[in-house]
């Protein structure tokens, strides 16, 4: 593993999230029917940050939930370390809400496919939108993001590492080359 380049620093991440927050409000107009649901692990922290940014714009909080998609994955056996099943925490009704799904990196689209399946089991939202900090391309399913922090073209032997203060002690996004 070799770090190739730093793509975003803390300031750039903050700016991207603030812009996305404005875009979410532009599209949805009010927080009344809006909720943000972050995909564990880092998407959950990003959802919380977006909710804070939205509250600054609209003076009204949007509901925030956390989704664990382990039970909906199609690649359980392909992952070397078996993922722990963590808690899903959505303590509000998503029916007739505009749900913004939040994740750190959009890659093959399989995580989002799993998240969509999971969300539908919680109710029937009015709409589901997707916000990601980084879109690195290489989609394997017909899925796209509505809100993107930064598009980063990558090779398949590279990975995009999003580091967030809440879990990693600092905010940055880097491209890492797999050896």
């Amino acid at each position, binding site marked *: 593993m070799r770090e190739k380049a730093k793509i975003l620093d803390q300031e750039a991440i903050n700016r991207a999230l603030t812009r996305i927050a404005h875009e979410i409000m532009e599209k949805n107009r009010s927080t009344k029917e809006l909720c943000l649901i972050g995909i564990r692990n880092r998407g959950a922290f990003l959802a919380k940050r977006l909710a804070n940014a939205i509250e600054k714009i609209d003076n009204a909080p949007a509901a925030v939930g956390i989704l*664990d998609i*382990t*039970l*909906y994955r199609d690649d*359980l*056996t*392909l992952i070397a*370390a*078996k993922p*722990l*099943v*963590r*808690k*899903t*925490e959505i303590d509000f009704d998503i029916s007739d809400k505009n749900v913004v799904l939040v994740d750190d990196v959009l890659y093959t689209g399989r995580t989002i496919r799993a998240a969509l*399946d*999971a969300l*539908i*089991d*919680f*109710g029937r939202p009015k709409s589901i939108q997707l916000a990601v900090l980084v879109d690195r391309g290489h989609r394997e399913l017909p899925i796209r993001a509505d809100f993107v922090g930064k598009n980063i073209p990558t090779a398949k032997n590279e990975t995009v590492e999003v580091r967030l203060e809440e879990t990693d002690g600092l905010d940055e996004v880097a491209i890492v080359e797999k050896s």
Partner: protein
Amino acid sequence: MTVKGIIMSWVRKDLLGLEYLSKEEIELILSTADSFKEVSTREIKKVPALRGKTVVNLFYEPSTRTRVSFEVAAKRLSADVINIASETSSVKKGETLIDTGKNIQALKADIIVMRHNYSGAAVVLARNIDLSVINAGDGWHEHPTQALLDIFTLKEKLGRIPGLHVTIVGDIAHSRVARSNIWGLTKLGAKVTVCAPAMLIPPGIEELGVKVSHDLGEALKQADAVNVLRMQFERDEEEAFPKQLEYFQNFGITAERLKKAKKGIIVMHPGPINRGIEMSSEVADGANSVILEQVTNGIAVRMAVLFLVAQAREENAA
């Protein structure tokens, strides 16, 4: 590979008893169960994790609650469930346990959940077939998922296991529930006292790291929780009644006794309850009782166990 003291992966094909598990493995099951609990509160109480997997409930002893709990757990994971009861199967015609297991294997099932009247039956079956075997109670040996759900409930109610005092009351000698609880609780650092008339305490039980008491009042004084076992007096009908009355007077849990026990003591029972024998109705339905929560938690615990062994099977096959 540890995250906050939890091991990352489960590698066992089977769950045969808590005696064979490490503290970390028990904690992994409990934390996985904690995540699964939420599934039963959803509008659609189902996740696709075990889609396409077949779970066979193989029951050589009558059981309703354990079998139904496993069936509900498997179905909430989207597995297909088949129930075989020995009274209506080829077991009646003399088929051996291993032959039955191999036939189920030939049906391309994935997991067998077995209840059997002989101690060690689950271990024998697991050794002879490639399918995962989950022990749902074998003779007087173990009933691991019952103990896991008891411990899960304790942890949920009291916030921790290490340092807790748990008293188990009843027929310790013939109880797989007691044995599994003793293994699990002591591994996690709880202090266990078993309390019963001398004839119902097996000799040498102290070697498992438990205290023995014949005085219920004394055993309840220190206890954060009391786990009350079912007495099976119905098995000897002739002398049942006087024995029941005597037992209730000396070892039945009553509101009167709870008043003298530690404040906030939790009362558990694996069910079905004999009201007026092991405990009074007042206690069974009272504020200290968590008996119905145990039933709810049993689903989450069994979902976790089914999921973990299924995941380990896939891993081994890959």
